[in-house]
């Protein structure tokens, strides 16, 4: 019966508890701050200047370039992630754990390293020509930036799709099979629609990432909003125009968020059947094994092998004059920034997701949209907004550890929503109701019945935020306390001065640091809805 769907959608829900409202308010206000600052900044311009700025033809050019880049990255990313996710969840391919790890590994590669690796591959002095004698046309502009971005953002798609595949009840596919449908028809009509929410959610994450990224884009010299904002802030010092560009970027984000809402509205994916979900019977690859492995090898080589080769190349110059003490300090600094930020983010994310699912309404929707807005706000603008507010309202917070944490949490909180939301949807509300019918308070029911099964997605979300903070640059750079140093700051300052060899150990440090945690993500993610019994047997 569709009772659950009917009841969660319709009618009035009781007033949400303060335990959910307060964190939601914190998130809402925190993520709204940057947009507010941008508005204040943008309105600094006088009236005559205003019209000229807003209707500059260049804006349209930047918009088109940004949209083209998003389209290229999402297409390439999906072409990599969807087959890979299917291979590791639905086929009899071996070493699934290792493969998943390899597919998630590019998360550990900072964007600027990926772009540099691609640049180093092509062109006259490129690796391809020096090592293999093949002269590739120089990768620049749209395709260069698109390739670089998809090669290190596809893991987001992969992880989300993999989790969706694992959480899907194979009974749907089996019943379609029993109706005499072919594998292809089942994939198109049964599997894809169920993957849809995960797909759209990760497209949104990656899309927002693309329009906010500037490292890879700057190296590829592709002019999009974020690149233009960066040059306005750092080079031209026209902060009013930069604020306007940022506002346009935000408008784009709002449009993307509304589009996502439109395509996934009113869908429910809680299982309604009895008993527990089983693991699907794997598809036999047979002769396709070779093709599958070739595909995976190519993806791994491009996304992880290439940056490693380039870094290895630089290491031979960097290693002899290595400052080990500095590397150690930077590693500890990175951990002290990313660890607490990840945990704080999760503490705020769980109540907000609960609010949006259990007490849907204007307030919950607003908070969720604001959180995504915070995530989509270009990190540079976000950081400057925080500086501005600290100086205006509480100078003692400026360049304090607390403000740094606040900025991390507010810009990454939306990232933690995905895994928790998926797990909560799949757990459904009936078991909490069963617990309450046994005389247990709503809070206790949640603690005992839902929370234990949220542990895995929570850890996965934590690790995701952790890695993002490890690689994050603009916020750290602008808000870190004096003398505070992280791996990313070291890579950036050294690369900026052209000391590629000096930067290499720190970049390698980031990659090692993050790949360790990517491995941990895989250990925890995807098992969200598995029952204890299955977890025990596996």
């Amino acid at each position: 019966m569709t009772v659950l769907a009917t009841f969660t959608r319709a009618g009035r829900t009781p007033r949400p508890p303060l335990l959910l409202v307060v964190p939601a308010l914190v998130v809402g206000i925190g993520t709204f701050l940057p947009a507010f600052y941008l508005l204040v900044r943008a309105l600094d311009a006088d009236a005559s200047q205003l019209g000229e700025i807003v209707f500059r033809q260049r804006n349209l050019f930047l918009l088109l370039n940004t949209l083209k880049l998003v389209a290229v990255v999402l297409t390439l990313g999906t072409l990599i992630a969807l087959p890979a996710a299917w291979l590791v969840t639905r086929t009899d391919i071996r070493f699934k754990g290792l493969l998943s790890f390899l597919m998630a590994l590019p998360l550990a590669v900072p964007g600027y390293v990926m772009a540099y690796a691609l640049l180093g591959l092509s062109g006259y002095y490129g690796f391809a020509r020096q090592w293999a004698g093949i002269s590739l046309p120089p990768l620049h502009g749209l395709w260069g930036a698109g390739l670089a971005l998809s090669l290190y953002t596809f893991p987001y798609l992969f992880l989300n799709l993999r989790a969706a595949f694992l959480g899907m009840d194979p009974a749907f596919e089996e019943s379609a099979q029993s109706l005499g449908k072919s594998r292809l028809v089942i994939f198109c009509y049964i599997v894809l629609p169920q993957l849809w929410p995960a797909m759209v959610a990760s497209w949104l994450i990656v899309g927002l990432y693309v329009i906010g990224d500037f490292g890879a884009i700057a190296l590829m010299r592709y002019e999009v909003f974020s690149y233009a904002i960066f040059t306005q802030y750092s080079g031209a010092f026209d902060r009013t125009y930069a604020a306007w560009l940022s506002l346009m970027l935000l408008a784009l984000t709002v449009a993307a968020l509304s589009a996502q809402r439109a395509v996934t509205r009113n869908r429910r994916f809680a299982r309604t059947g009895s008993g527990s979900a089983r693991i699907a019977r794997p598809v036999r690859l047979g002769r396709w094994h070779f093709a599958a492995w070739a595909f995976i090898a190519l993806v791994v080589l491009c996304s992880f092998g290439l940056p490693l080769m380039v870094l290895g190349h630089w290491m031979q110059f960097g290693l002899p004059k290595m400052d080990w003490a500095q590397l150690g300090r930077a590693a500890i600094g990175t951990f002290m920034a990313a660890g607490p930020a990840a945990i704080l983010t999760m503490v705020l994310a769980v109540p907000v997701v609960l609010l949006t699912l259990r007490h849907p309404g204007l307030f919950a929707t607003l908070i969720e949209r604001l959180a995504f807005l915070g995530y989509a706000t270009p990190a540079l603008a976000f950081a400057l907004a925080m500086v501005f507010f600290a100086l205006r309202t509480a100078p003692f917070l400026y360049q304090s550890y607390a403000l740094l944490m606040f900025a991390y949490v507010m810009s990454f909180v939306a990232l933690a929503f995905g895994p928790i939301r998926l797990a909560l949807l799949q757990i459904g509300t009936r078991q909490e109701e069963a617990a309450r019918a046994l005389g247990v308070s709503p809070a206790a029911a949640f603690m005992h019945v839902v929370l234990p099964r949220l542990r895995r997605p929570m850890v996965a979300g934590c690790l995701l935020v952790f890695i993002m903070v490890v690689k994050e640059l603009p916020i750290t750079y602008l808000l870190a306390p004096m003398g505070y140093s992280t791996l990313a700051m070291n890579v950036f300052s050294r690369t900026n001065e052209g000391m590629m060899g000096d930067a290499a150990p720190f970049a390698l440090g980031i990659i090692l640091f993050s790949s360790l945690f990517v491995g941990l993500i895989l250990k925890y993610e995807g098992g969200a809805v598995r029952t204890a019994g299955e977890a025990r047997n596996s």
Partner: protein
Amino acid sequence: MTDNLLLSVRSLSRRFGRKGPVAVDDLSFDIDTGEILALIGPSGCGKTTTLRMIAGFETPDTGRVLLSGRDLTSTPAEQRGIGMVFQDYALFPHMTVGENIRFGARRNGRDVVARYLGMVGLDGFEQRYPDQLSGGQQQRVALARSFAAEPRLILLDEPFSNLDAALRSAARREIRRLLKSAGIAIVFVTHDQEEALSFADRIAIMRDGRILQSGMAQEVYDRPADAFVATFLGRTNLLEGTAEGGFARTSLGLLPLTRPTSGRVSISLRPERLGIRAVEADEQPNGRIVAVEFKGHDMTYWVDCDGVEVQVDAMQSVRLAEGTPVRVAVDGEAVPLDVVSL
């Protein structure tokens, strides 16, 4: 009202969305201690919504829910002392059977789990996980879990729909005996008339959010108020006729009625209330068999009586072939029905 009155539902209404259809419409009923009431109706008639309002998972737009005279309407679900067993049982998959039962148990003794498991005949299953149990076992664990919270009333949502047919009737009998010996009152929801009739003391037939008729199972079956109730609770013959006092003239001849009435009437006549036999040598038949349905221990004949098709249930004593001219006779009284729009 009796002294054992346990639950009173008064004028409960619930509408989904401001302009949406009414799911439950001014519903009232009572249940005594230890009584089993079935809410039966087609899907979408509002029976599950009613159950959830009693449990406290839905807030009624109007009306009240009283347990032993105490108004529970604004009491949260967990403080009502009303148990609920869900259609899919909602066992906590990350807890063992023992942990599931201990979760809601009112008492904290060492033997609590063993006692309730023993009650449902699952001794020794304490360490199992829900996914290691069959459907019937899961259901019994869900019941044991509810019992352990010691409610006076348990709500069951389609309790037997997830069990296979072979298990269903056995489970029904066993659980009914269990509930009766525990003295727990039950409201359960079903769309299966056989389940309602065999499991409940009293049934209430719902349609479009209202109760059409309620009463003892046999009484409602024997004297349905209208054609909907008559057809929903098993098979029946709906005949048109003209009534005069205690009799009605129909295509089957003059029939005695359960209550006197007059004018044009619709009447319901259960197939098992009709007798059938082959005509004797010089006898005039009043019908001809057009179809025979062999069902093992009994048979159903479809008889054309003067242009009206009538079903007749007969035991195996007579076996007649298709096309046989027969005499159909009424054994008992026909029920005149209220006029309703179907």
